[in-house]
């Protein structure tokens, strides 16, 4: 298990399950500060090149720089045609209910589950 602490949030990578679990409130100041998240996602996708699940259900907030970071990661996976991405969302958290479906607009192969 690998863990990244980013501001008020954490991302945990469960390698055996190809699972990324996001928790807390991710509101880093700018794209540069999100570089650590980009690198963590990239390493995770290299470890799990077939399938990768991003569990966002405990992520209370994600600012637009964070949404951009996740979006660009999905576009990179689309370009590489791997890994297959599954996103777990929580409709009781408004930003997820409103904005997570955007990921599928970037890459139709993204699977979104409630």
């Amino acid at each position, binding site marked *: 298990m690998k863990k990244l602490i980013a*501001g*008020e949030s954490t991302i945990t990578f469960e390698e055996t399950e190809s699972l990324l679990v996001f928790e807390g*409130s991710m*509101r*880093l*100041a*700018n*794209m*540069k500060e999100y*570089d650590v998240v980009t690198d963590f996602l990239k390493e995770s996708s290299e470890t799990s090149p077939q399938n990768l699940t991003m569990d966002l259900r405990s992520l*209370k*907030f994600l*600012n*637009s*720089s964070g*949404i*951009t970071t996740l*979006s*660009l990661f999905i*576009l*990179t996976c689309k370009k590489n045609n791997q890994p297959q991405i599954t996103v777990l969302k929580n409709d*009781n*958290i*408004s*930003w997820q209910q*409103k*904005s997570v479906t*955007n990921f599928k*607009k*970037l890459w139709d192969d993204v699977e979104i589950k409630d």
Partner: protein
Amino acid sequence: MTIDTLGEFDIIPDSIPAEGDVFIRVKPIDFITYWKRCGIMADFAASFYAFTQDNPEEQENIISTIFNELIENATKYSVKRHGEIKVHMKLYDTVLKIQTENFTPKLHFQKLRSHIKKLTESNDLDELYINTLAGKPADPSESGIGLLLMIKDYNIKLGAQFHHNEETDQYKVIIQTYYYIEH
């Protein structure tokens, strides 16, 4: 001198009495020093109005998200760390108006004006979202989708007004958002 007014600006003018009226004046240095303060202030603003709503947790998350994007933008693009950001929140029955006012460098002023013009005149915001992200370099310096997501996903009405003070050669940006509280 007013240079331009874009989008849905002053759809509820200040002359109409509000049922709630909060005014915050803050310096960018407060947020730059501790970025977490953006979120703290956004959460405060959200809880201040959300607890009276039918679904307070949902409204708190929405209002905090909107407020946070607005003050993050105003902070990042303020001309001076010791300049001022003014935030005005007014509640009109089921509409929450949030207005930010700050001074920006000329270069950002021009970029922001062009960006908001594109946002407010777009007929297809999904396409704009996809194109904005697809056109980004691998290591972008800025997100550029905050206001776009507000309009696209939160059904926010957004307007902006741009001013130039010729005496001080400063550029002022006023951004207004109107959030129609969902029930």
